[in-house]
């Protein structure tokens, strides 16, 4: 081999090695972006799954509760006055505190502490007249201090937690009366203006209902359209035109669909504002082209030999399609549908336009109740000033990501498990 040839060969090998390195660097970059993103979210969000409680003692004093009856009924307990009892439970933490300063103590728990005092008695009627320990939801400021997210060394006037409150907190913490438990209420509570009470139940249910409505509207329409276009429609200029338009539809920015939902569904058809019904229909406009394209691709992938076999047996076009082509294309269609729905799941802009950004502090029971959705909830919380919402945003993102990963996994499983192999 002469030296020229040798050089050329060396160059070729070097070029290939370089090319492989470019690819490795590209993958490394992509992975590190992902890692940074995930680290950000997890490090900020994991603490939202912990909830801080303040333990104190409550005396269910019949006199203060204004209960006269000897053996009070459930109604009596329900209608009793808990203000004083709850107030005393908190102020008893520092009996020496002058009355005009009492707000400092009350502010350390959530504004719902009175309800919590009431709920404990309703659950345990025999506590009446006794002094019992009680867990009260700490205010988001105390919560953040406990989680170490709140700097204690800045000047007092810039702090939402003053020196006195920090002193009480330290005392309680030393006594073991500050509890940190898994935050169930984050999953069971609706949204709230108070970070310590806010949960994702309403937005989660809103998302579930929206997706179901979206599926119910887009799947049948898209599959029928795909079957007709692929199996029955004549191939001419008109059907070409339709195909081009479906592809264009898939590229329309989602906010445009939001405007359509606003202008048509709300203004013309007068459907209830801020509801998953409207949100789902709007989203279904977006998923429709995605499903049509996926369904057509998987119909196309059914080998023509199967169609020929059925036709040659004397099956009509309809029988060939329904007995053979459509069942064989279903795995692809279904996984396309799930991917379309997963896209819709993360959509925010169209839902904001149709009013699903409204503050909803009830859990929707049907698709026509007002609701938010997970991505919109992220948007709402990220606009809130309180420090307590920062971790909530990340936690909500984690829930949304988990939802998305589950759906994509389902798409993979459907595709691989039900796909038929033909020789």
């Amino acid at each position, binding site marked *: 081999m002469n030296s020229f040839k040798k050089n050329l060969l060396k160059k070729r090998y070097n070029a290939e090695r370089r090319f492989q390195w470019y690819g490795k660097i590209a993958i490394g970059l992509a992975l590190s972006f992902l890692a940074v993103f995930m680290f950000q979210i997890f490090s900020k969000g994991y603490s939202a799954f912990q909830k801080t409680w303040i333990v104190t003692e409550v005396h269910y004093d019949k006199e203060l509760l204004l209960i006269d009856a000897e053996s009070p009924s459930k109604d009596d307990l329900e209608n009793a006055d808990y203000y004083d009892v709850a107030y005393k439970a908190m102020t008893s933490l520092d009996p020496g505190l002058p009355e005009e300063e009492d707000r400092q103590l009350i502010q350390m728990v959530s504004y719902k502490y009175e309800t919590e005092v009431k709920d404990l008695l309703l659950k345990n009627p025999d506590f009446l007249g006794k002094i019992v320990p009680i867990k009260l939801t700490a205010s988001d400021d105390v919560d953040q201090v406990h989680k170490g997210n709140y700097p204690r060394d800045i000047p007092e006037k810039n702090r939402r937690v003053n020196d006195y409150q920090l002193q009480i907190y330290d005392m309680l913490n030393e006594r073991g009366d500050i509890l940190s438990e898994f935050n169930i209420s984050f999953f069971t509570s609706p949204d709230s203006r108070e970070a310590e009470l806010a949960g994702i139940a309403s937005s989660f249910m809103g998302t579930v209902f929206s997706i179901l409505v979206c599926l119910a509207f887009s799947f049948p329409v898209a599959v029928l359209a795909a079957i007709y276009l692929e199996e029955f429609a004549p191939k001419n200029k008109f059907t070409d035109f339709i195909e081009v338009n479906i592809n264009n539809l898939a590229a329309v920015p989602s906010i445009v669909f939001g405007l359509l939902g606003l202008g048509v569904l709300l203004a013309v058809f007068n459907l209830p504002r801020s509801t998953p019904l409207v949100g789902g229909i709007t989203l279904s406009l977006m998923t429709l082209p995605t499903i049509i394209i996926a369904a057509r691709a998987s119909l196309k992938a059914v080998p023509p030999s*199967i169609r020929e076999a059925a036709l040659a047996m004397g099956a009509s076009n309809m029988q060939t399609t329904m007995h053979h082509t459509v069942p*064989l294309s279903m795995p692809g269609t279904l996984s396309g549908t799930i991917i379309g729905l997963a896209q819709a799941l993360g959509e925010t802009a169209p839902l904001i336009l149709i009013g699903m950004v409204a503050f909803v502090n009830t859990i929707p029971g049907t698709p026509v109740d007002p609701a938010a959705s997970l991505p919109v909830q992220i948007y709402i919380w990220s606009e809130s000033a309180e420090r307590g919402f920062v971790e909530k945003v990340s936690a909500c993102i984690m829930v949304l990501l988990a939802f998305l990963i589950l759906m994509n996994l389902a798409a993979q499983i459907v595709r691989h498990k039900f796909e038929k192999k033909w020789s």
Partner: protein
Amino acid sequence: MSKIKAENVNVYYGSKQALFDVSIDIAEKEVTALIGPSGCGKSTFLRCLNRMNDVIEICRVEGSIKMDNLELNSRKLDVVRLRENVGMVFQKPNPFPKTIYENVAYGPTIHGIAQSKEEMDQIVETSLKKAALWNEVKDRLDEIGTGLSGGQQQRLCIARAISVSPEVILMDEPCSALDPIATAQIEELIDDLKKEVTIVIVTHSMSQAARVSQKTGFFHLGKLIEFGPTDKIFKNPDNQQTQDYITGRFG
């Protein structure tokens, strides 16, 4: 006796003419082989006989094809009924990705041939027996048809075709994807089947045509060059082109 009589058949794919004035008489309960080089139009002609060309949108068929005096090339013809009477076996085995039983039972089901489950079982068994596949699959009728070997798949396709008792079976190079042993089995099968049905077979193998057929037609460039008894075509053809093709000088 003539089963199918084609007269002056012209086929066009768009503006391209694929068949030129083909006239042929296919005799009942005989095997008719169509031979010729690739692209000569023999498959196109075969697909005229069960109107499979309808699937191809740009395809246009002119002329007259009569089966028992029924005009096949007519808009009014019910193709579903026609295909019940004219079965087809394709080049590549194409069983449905369903069980062996379902593959054979499909035709009788959609045409309402069997009244009961017992009758259907009987049809499936007879068809598989006629296709010489019964002994190999009788214990695994609920297995997927596409899991069989190539030769078995093709015999399954033949069983599927004969399940509706057609009068004619069209075979489009049925052995081209098979090994010699499977080919021999299919050829034996064709020999058996011709007692009951008329068979038209397109083949690239001249020895196969010589072995299985009684009549042979030689196609070239869309024209039927010569048609006659297989013996005569192979031993003493009238046409020089046929002679050249048979002896392997072109094609």
